[in-house]
């Protein structure tokens, strides 16, 4: 092959490269992009995972149970509870409900935490929306 022949083929290659037809963008692309962008800016959907629901239910039941105990317990049972609490938590004899209050407060905080977790925005939708 002589040099002029090689140049000729290279010129043909260059010409083909410069005249490569552009693939036209699909008509639906614009609407797909708009959908994708809208999905990003839309407020996230309400999410209530079953595990958090179960934990919240358990804590709420416990809290209600403790409240009901403290309010509606007969005097004899209350004395027994005082003794039990004194035994377990070594609190002063005249303040047996202190420990129960601490536990109750802890559960209340936990309930609030899960309530906030549930009510706050959940997971984002995927960035790209498929057809």
């Amino acid at each position, binding site marked *: 092959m002589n040099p002029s022949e090689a140049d000729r083929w290279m010129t043909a290659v260059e010409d083909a490269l410069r005249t490569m037809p552009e693939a036209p963008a699909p008509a639906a692309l614009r609407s797909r992009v708009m959908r994708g962008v809208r999905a990003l800016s839309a407020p996230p959907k309400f999410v209530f995972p079953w595990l958090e629901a179960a934990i919240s239910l358990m804590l709420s039941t416990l809290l209600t149970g403790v409240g009901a105990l403290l309010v509606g317990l007969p005097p004899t049972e209350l004395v027994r509870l005082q003794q039990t609490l004194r035994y377990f938590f070594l609190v002063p004899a005249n303040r047996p409900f202190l420990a129960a209050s601490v536990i109750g407060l802890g559960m209340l905080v936990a309930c609030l935490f899960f309530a906030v977790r549930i009510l706050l925005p959940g997971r984002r939708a995927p960035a*790209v929306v498929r057809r």
Partner: protein
Amino acid sequence: MLVVEHQAYVFNLAYRVLGNEQEAEDTAQEAFVRAWQSLPRFRAQARFGTWMYRIVTNLCYNRLPRLRRELSAIGEDEIEDHADLQTGKADDGLEAAERRAWLHRQIEELPEAYRLLLTLRYQRNLPYEEIASVTSLPMGTVKTGLFRAKERLRSALETYEEARL
């Protein structure tokens, strides 16, 4: 709007590299959504087009992990692309048109790495520095890659023409 103005070349680049219309459409959509998300971080000193090419190229890297490996494997030879030296006029006529169509098919059959470089260079008319920036490659690799891609096409054309005679 931004999409209307840029969709043609964004889709075209993705299509040329990935070689599949559906994947190219997905990539183009993802590129625009990413661009929209990152728009506050876009630095005005860079061209918007270059920034979009980079996003599309990175998405192509994600879809085709071997593409980055192929590009890195090109290396940097002493040879340089001499595209700008080729100022000869291409032939006209039926035979030339047939040859051109044949070459277009050959370009589509090149490896993705070459197709990416050739599309950026010849369809988008990007200078070497910009291609290097878009692909995150050294400029020497870009030049070598373009040279080899064209050499492959020239060699294929030579064989094709010899067979025709």
